[in-house]
């Protein structure tokens, strides 16, 4: 019996399983009256973290399956896994290696989750337990981290997935809002802009006739109102020689246009067709 006491691990830390962390917490609070000063109540600020629940999926897990699959309250969440000592974390936790803390900050799993045995995140004495995660885990790097800060979801689900819809609905809806906005804007404006380019290229290649008429449907404004742009009645503040030059130009181009009109009447079949 002495031997058994000697070789068994610390009772309080490793072996005790608590059915409800909340009950234990309340007991302590009631008995001492000042528990809150030492450990901060998570209150309503619960992290939408991915705790597997019995209601996950279409069918709830069976009692046996739940015992195998749900390990969030165990002191050693990996207990009973075959050949555990030769496995690596990322063999099973593939998705958990892709977040910012792992990829950007180059953190290893153990820097947050600690040594073996890795307890479930809701195990009463786990450093990852939401009641002390902020001080035991987050504050190692983020000095001054609060309970609220610790509700940041490090291993966030794929934002557009149904998992996210279940566990982190705000993330899911934000994702689809911004994604549809992004995709919709580009899906509308890229073809729109491309068509503008094509259409304007066509217009540029097929230049309008010199008489200012557009001969194809859709080739620009056919109803330019001369009254809108003639500016003869306004005072002309240009120098005298400029005005003269301008006047000559207008006269010359008038003559040129008349000449061209005559020519076109003779040899432009397209124009004839149009007047018909």
């Amino acid at each position, binding site marked *: 019996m002495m031997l058994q006491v000697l070789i068994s691990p610390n009772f309080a830390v490793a072996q005790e399983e608590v059915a409800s962390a909340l009950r234990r917490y309340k007991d302590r609070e009631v008995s001492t009256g000042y528990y809150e000063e030492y450990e901060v109540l998570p209150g309503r*600020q619960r*992290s*939408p973290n991915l705790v597997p629940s019995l209601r996950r999926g279409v069918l709830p897990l069976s009692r046996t399956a739940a015992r195998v699959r749900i390990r969030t309250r165990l002191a050693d969440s990996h207990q009973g896994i075959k050949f555990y000592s030769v496995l690596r974390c990322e063999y099973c936790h593939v998705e958990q290696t892709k977040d*910012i803390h792992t990829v950007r900050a180059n953190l290893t799993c153990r820097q947050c989750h600690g040594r073996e045995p890795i307890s479930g995140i809701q195990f009463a004495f786990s450093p990852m337990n939401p009641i002390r995660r902020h001080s035991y885990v987050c504050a190692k790097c*983020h000095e*001054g*981290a*609060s309970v*609220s*800060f*610790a*509700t*940041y*979801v490090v291993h*966030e689900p*794929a*934002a557009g997935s149904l998992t996210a819809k279940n566990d*982190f609905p705000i*993330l899911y809806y*934000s*994702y689809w809002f*911004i*994604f549809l906005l*992004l995709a919709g*804007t*580009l899906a509308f*404006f890229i073809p*729109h*802009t491309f*068509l*503008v*380019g094509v*259409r*304007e290229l066509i217009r*540029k290649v097929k230049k309008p006739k010199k*008489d*200012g*008429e557009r001969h194809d*449907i*859709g*080739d*620009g*404004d*056919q109803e*330019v*109102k*001369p*009254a*809108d*742009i*003639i*500016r003869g009645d*306004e005072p002309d*503040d240009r120098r005298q020689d400029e005005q003269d030059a*301008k006047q000559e130009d*207008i006269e010359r*181009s*008038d003559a040129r*246009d008349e000449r061209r*009109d005559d020519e076109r009447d003779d040899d432009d079949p397209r124009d004839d067709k149009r007047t018909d």
Partner: protein
Amino acid sequence: MNDVMTNAMTMTQEMTNARIKRFSPVDRLYHLFLMLTFLIQSATGFSRLFFTTFWGKQLGNVFGGYDTSLTIHKWVGVFMMIGFVIHTIHLLTRVQWRNFPQSVFGPDSLVPNFNDARHLWQRLRWFFGLGSPPKFDRWTYWEKFDYWAVYWGLPLLAVTGLMLMYPLLTSHLLPGWSLNIALLLHRAEAVLATSYIFIIHFFIGHLRPTSFPMNEAMFAGSIPLEEALEERPDWVARLSQEGPLELVNSKPPALWYRVVYFVFGYAALACGVYLLINGIIHSGAVRLH
């Protein structure tokens, strides 16, 4: 009637140096400021977004590494927020409060109105040769979209950016998981803004046949009367009804100034296209969230 029309067109052809003022110097300053800050933000932001790729690391090295590029990103972001606030105050002073609804929903305002929907419909028909192109007034619907896209995107990026800059303070005011949302929105909105600017805005400004090689309106401040008559006849008509066109004539830009803004504009274009192409190449390495 043909004679009158001929005369009118001759007049317009002769008035090649007649120009209409389109942007005030202050407007152009805002655009210049936005160009510079936006490019810095996209480059530093991309260097961090694509940090896991070799290209992203190299881009980060230009700005002094992963951490320094974040410092630059934050500071330039703060400048952008200040610019946004100044711009908003300036906007409020520009509204003619005495005839309030007309000044905001009128044709000189960038606020979208029913005509924009009509123009869009007409233009979609015109794409397929089903009708004549719409006669735009001062601002076309895509210009309004450009403006408002930036105007709502900037506060979104600013708020989410501030949240990420001060995560501890944020977690006092909001639950900590709001940082997950902030990061997602900041990233996705930045991708939206950069792809919109580097694809669509650049195409409209430089590559579309009426603008090629560069739409100078935003730098010169004025556009030739011909160009306005071609695309925005309703604007010219309105201006000439309001008063003599002479009043809005402005000088063509000097040659040295044109050289400067062509070089500058093309440098900005090159930066944007470089980021866009490399971003597309390495897009497999990033996720929106």
